[in-house]
């Protein structure tokens, strides 16, 4: 049967199992939206900004493991997706972006709403396509989904000129994806696994350093079995949170700049670091010159380019955690490491995550309250900044895909749309967006989507009247010269929420926190926004200053004394 390009696109998306598309139409995108109009399987969600659409698709992906899809028109619509694509790319999130393009004959002519989208998005996508021939369209879409969701995952963009969307051809669904040059490695090399097991069995002070690769590989179960058999302490990256239970007794906390002192000291003292699905990011390693000098390094990752990029691996294993870990678990002997744990437990005792209760309503207290009230059973999205780090520190994530946050790119404005995407993908679940007064204003327009679709998201604003993380750096490292961080002139967030049709609440005292949160949990037909007026000068601690060794953290007591 003959079909139009746009119809082929929608049919392919349906066959790929797409449930939602987030996006905004425009002149060149009308054919695509026209085809969407007839789809019974795909729900179109009209966002208010394309960046919101990209983050919604991303939040849906992160929270469900399925592939989120967003769509935008040519030119400004497409360029508005760029931040969302870069966010997903940095965190290896599978996503498909469809952009309309001016007709093929006009490409390169500076046509109205034309932009070189394939050129602009090349560095922020895993791969991208400009489809100039309708006969390649179905194959391209198949490939795009395959590429996005295999190997090290990532966003793929398809740029579709409107004349191709309107042209007709015989539609044939390509049953198989044939890509002879793209073959990600899933199974680890047997000899390398054997070597790794030998090192693990020899180690006296092993540390497991795991990241979002465990989540991407859906290998939490395999990972837990491995970790429990080795008996080694487990430190996680920001994005790895939830891949191993935050309440597990082998968990020593988040690693890196705002990680626990215990996890950083353990990495420093270790004689063996077992890195799995993590990439030795600078926020984790601190100054490389001092990083883990006495440790051998086993690095398991699906992406060969991640291995020995910043830290040389002694035993590299290219493969995915789901395949490699069971094999490795078989070959390691059960360990207890009592001496090592004695030391770790002493660190735990001496350097707990803590904060001073003095000086007003404390943001950390609010996170603790949310954790207790929900018993941790929630999907928590965050924006980027202090609130994000407090969430990572004080909320214990026990289940995979319960923490949704922009790690690599650090995109403010990510949380609200991501929470919306997560709620679409998890209709029965409790979804939070923990935010700051700076970040929330970066995509606040998407609040209306939650109202329109009756999504009962809880938006928590930890409102300190400033861009807190930058203020913190200025306080600690820039002689308190608070340049460009004051947000004291701000909208009345409660009224703003109400203007959108959401419930708005405000909390200024500690004793109101619990009851207000409880009240918000009862609201099921619309989003709730709670404006928490928190202590302005509260800092995220411990903190390893940028460029310092991970052992040189500033703790909350140091700041209190100063």
């Amino acid at each position, binding site marked *: 049967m003959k079909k139009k390009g746009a119809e082929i696109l929608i049919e392919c998306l349906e066959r790929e199992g797409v449930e939602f598309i987030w996006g905004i139409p425009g002149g060149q995108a009308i054919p695509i939206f026209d085809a969407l109009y007839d789809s019974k399987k795909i729900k179109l969600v009209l966002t208010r900004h394309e960046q919101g659409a990209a983050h919604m698709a991303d939040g849906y992906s992160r929270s469900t493991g399925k592939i989120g899809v967003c769509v935008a028109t040519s030119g400004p619509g497409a360029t508005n997706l760029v931040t969302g694509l870069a966010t997903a790319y940095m965190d290896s999130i599978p996503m498909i972006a469809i952009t309309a393009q001016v007709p093929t004959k006009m490409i390169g002519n500076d046509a109205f709403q034309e932009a070189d989208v394939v*050129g602009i998005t*090349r*560095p922020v996508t895993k791969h991208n396509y400009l489809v100039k021939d309708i006969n390649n369209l179905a194959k391209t879409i198949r490939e795009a989904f395959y590429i996005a969701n295999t190997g090290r995952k990532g966003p793929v963009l398809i740029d579709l000129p409107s004349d191709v969307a309107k042209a007709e051809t015989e539609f044939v669904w390509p049953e198989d994806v044939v890509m002879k040059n793209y073959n990600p490695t899933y199974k680890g090399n047997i000899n390398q696994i054997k070597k790794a097991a030998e090192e693990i069995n020899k180690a006296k002070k092993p540390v497991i350093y795991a990241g979002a690769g465990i989540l991407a590989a859906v290998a939490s179960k395999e990972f837990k079995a491995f970790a429990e058999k080795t008996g080694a302490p487990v430190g996680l990256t920001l994005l790895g949170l939830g891949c191993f239970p935050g309440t597990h007794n082998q968990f020593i906390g988040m690693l890196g700049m705002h990680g626990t002192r215990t996890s950083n000291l353990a990495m420093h003292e270790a004689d063996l670091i077992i890195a799995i699905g993590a990439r030795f990011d600078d926020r984790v390693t601190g100054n490389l010159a001092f990083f883990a000098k006495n440790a051998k390094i086993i690095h398991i990752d699906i*992406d060969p380019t991640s291995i020995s990029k910043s830290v040389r691996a002694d035993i590299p294993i290219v493969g995915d955690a789901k395949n490699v870990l069971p094999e490795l678990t078989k070959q390691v002997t059960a360990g207890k490491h009592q001496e090592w744990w004695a030391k770790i437990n002493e660190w735990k005792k001496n350097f707990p995550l803590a904060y001073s209760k003095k000086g007003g309503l404390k943001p950390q207290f609010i996170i603790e309250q949310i954790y207790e009230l929900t018993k941790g059973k929630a999907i928590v999205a965050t924006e980027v900044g202090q609130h994000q780090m407090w969430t990572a520190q004080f909320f214990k994530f026990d289940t995979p895909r319960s923490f949704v946050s922009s790690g690599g790119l650090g995109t403010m404005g990510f949380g609200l749309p991501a929470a919306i995407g997560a709620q679409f993908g998890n209709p029965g679940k409790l979804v939070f967006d923990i935010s700051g007064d700076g970040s929330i204003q970066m995509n606040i327009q998407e609040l209306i989507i939650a109202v329109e679709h009756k999504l009962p998201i809880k938006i928590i604003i930890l409102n300190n009247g400033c861009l807190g993380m930058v203020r913190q750096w200025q306080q600690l490292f820039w002689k308190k010269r608070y340049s460009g961080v004051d947000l004291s002139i701000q909208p009345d967030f409660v009224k703003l929420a109400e203007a959108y049709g959401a419930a708005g609440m405000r909390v200024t005292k500690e004793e109101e926190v619990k009851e207000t949160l409880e009240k918000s949990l009862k609201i099921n037909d619309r989003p709730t926004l709670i404006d928490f007026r928190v202590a302005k000068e509260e800092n995220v601690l411990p903190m390893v200053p940028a460029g310092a060794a991970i052992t040189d953290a500033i703790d909350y007591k140091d700041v209190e004394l100063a």
Partner: protein
Amino acid sequence: MKHTMSVLVENKPGVLARVAGLFSGRGFNIESLTVGETEDAAVSRMTIVVGGDDMILEQISKQLNKLIDTIKVIDMTEKQFINRELALIKVAVNSGNRGEVMQVVNIFRGKIVDISSKTFTVEVTGTDDKINALLELLLPFGIKEMVRTGSVALTREWQKEEPKKR
């Protein structure tokens, strides 16, 4: 150290931009890059000469491999290989030194492919070392213009030993 990488890629639009973008985006330096069709019209071969330490070279090679359009990456430097570059050099000459320039060019088995009252245009092929040596000898006469293609390379059929594995 300088490495010569031979990269087989799909012969289609945008691939060169991806490769070039990979180098610029990650701060790697390209010394030279040539690209052309191979025996298979669907495949292009890029010969890229790059500098850097082992860790950078390993990254470059892995990043090139990671591109969806890349078919194969060969680090020639680990093997026996033939590499050639072509240069066209326009040298200033006068009635007094024409003979001397011709002698130099002959020794390098170059050809004079264009001639005017004031210039010779010399065509020479060889390794970049050879071309550099010729250039040094021609420099005193005055080089008006020059163009070099960058290296192209193929592995030798005969290899001394198994190439070392990374």
